[in-house]
């Protein structure tokens, strides 16, 4: 099934940051989304559970975008947001949005493959709400 939320995230990111070259702004938005995912899932599957899914997503996404490859060992206790931001900050705008969106898509698809689309949608319903309903990017900055 198509991961509608991740597609929405990609479209929304592209729209919001259209013509903007501020990589840090985009990286912050992406990290913020991952923090929302962590907040939504951590109580239910534990921080190690979220970290394991995140690590797997990074690994899969790095096949398309090698810059997402991580040197972390596979036994992380929690998502390393600092490391994520560092990876993102090293990219150009377009690659950043495409790679960042693919990472979300892979994560959603992974979760869907494990617990199905309806539960995934239910668990992550609140994620991105801020991005979708918040003020436009220029005011956001």
């Amino acid at each position, binding site marked *: 099934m198509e991961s509608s939320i991740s597609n929405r995230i990609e479209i929304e990111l592209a729209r919001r940051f259209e013509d903007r070259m501020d990589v840090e702004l985009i990286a912050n938005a992406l990290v913020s989304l991952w923090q929302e995912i962590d907040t939504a899932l951590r109580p*239910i*599957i*534990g921080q190690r559970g979220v970290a394991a899914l995140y690590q797997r997503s990074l690994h899969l996404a790095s096949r398309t975008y090698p810059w997402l490859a991580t040197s972390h060992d596979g036994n992380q206790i929690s998502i390393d947001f600092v490391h994520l931001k560092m990876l993102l900050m090293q990219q150009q705008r377009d690659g950043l949005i495409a790679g960042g969106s693919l990472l979300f898509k892979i994560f959603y698809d992974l979760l869907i493959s*494990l*617990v199905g689309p309806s539960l995934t*949608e239910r668990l992550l319903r609140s994620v991105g709400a801020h991005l979708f309903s918040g003020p436009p990017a220029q005011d956001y900055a």
Partner: protein
Amino acid sequence: MNTKVVINRLATGVPGLDEVLGGGLPEYSFNLIAGPPGCGKTTLAHQIMFALATRERPALYFTVLGEPPLKMLRYQQQFDFFDSEVINQSIRFINLADDALAGNLDQVLRRIVTEVETHSPALVFVDSFRSVALANNSTGNPHNILQQFVQELGMLMTSWQATTFLIGEYFTESDPNPVFTVADGIIWLRQSVERNSMVRKIEIMKMRGQPTLPGLHTFRIASSGLEIFAPVRSAAAVSEQPASTDTRIAMGTPRLDEMLGGGLPSGYSLLIAGPSGSGKSILASSFLAEGARCGEKGIIAAFEQRPNRARNRTLTNLIDAGHVSLVDSRAPDLSIDEIVLQLLNEIDRLKATRVVIDSLSGFELAVAPTFRTDFRESLARMVTALAATGVTVLMTSELEDRYTDLRFSPYGTAFLTDAIIVQRYVEIDSRLRRMMAVVKVRASAHSNELREYQIDDAGLLIGDIVTNQDGLLSGRSTKITLPAAGSTATDSRGSGSMP
């Protein structure tokens, strides 16, 4: 004025469980769901939770160590009761793995209390509780620490007005586990393996303040979740009205009604015992066909090895036309309680008046080996439960043809039934011929004649009494030489005598 506290009993939503519990689950009780791995503890907990949780009565499900929550959610959502929409609304899952891994039970308890304070749940589940105990790495006596933990948890949950469930793997109930003392209720799930079959059983070992149904009760896990087969006595609304001989029903086999003293009294149970090929099933089909002709609905519980090939055309037509409902369970863990429940449901659904069980011998083979030891007792319960509904029951029973031993059924079930017809093969003039007789019709006159019968496309054709043979049932019949005309050598006892 009655000042006693009224304990509200919650309907668990698990078919059969409320009956076994003795009327539902006491609100604010502190319960243990125990049993070995794979016995259905987590499924039972989820089924109860999804049935009971509402926005006004929310549930918290704490996962500790053991089964990863993702796996649990993955598998539990396969059940019909699982509703993704209520997650994070009336049902919240909370993972305590990080707290448990720290090895400090106080921290686990604190986290539980924090979450309970935040969400004010009416239902709390802790899965698995055993892993909480294992997570404790303090140096004190593990039993004391665990007991203290459980007591605190129990006290807190009761004060917070939460009905609580601890789910845990316990292999032996003899283990003097302090949890057992503290718990208000203990629901024990088991798996009984005998030969190639596995039967799931549930036992309410303890439920404070209410009369539970003692003993082991069979249950099955299907896509709808657990279904518990409560014993028939509690499942059936037993009416104690005895069957009367005033109303008699036709058997659908010509001349058989006459042998029975005017038909079979309505509400009676009739056993037809005979060797293989003697026409028991044909007689049973005629019984159902006669019912259909009179506008009555029938039910047949068939236990042939090859149902489609073995079933006769009359019966197939009756089933196809909707006059007869077929109960044909081939589950390897089939219990008598389950089949009785199926029959009672069908009787209720169709308002059926005639029930056939064909045959008891096949039934015995169909039930899981673990139930065969108690087959006779269970059969008695089944006959009682069916009789209580007022239906007329016809059961067939395979009878080994032993000429040295006059039997009516291999289970000593003859006493259970109100009426018995026996069929035998006899040798007369170097031919194998069929005989039948009515052995018993409780509180009614009936024939005691040995009648010869034949089987053709129309069914059983009952002939006359065999008048010139003696010792038929012994297998060594002798021809009686008729004396001079005007007298008879046979003892023509005729119909109308009492049993």
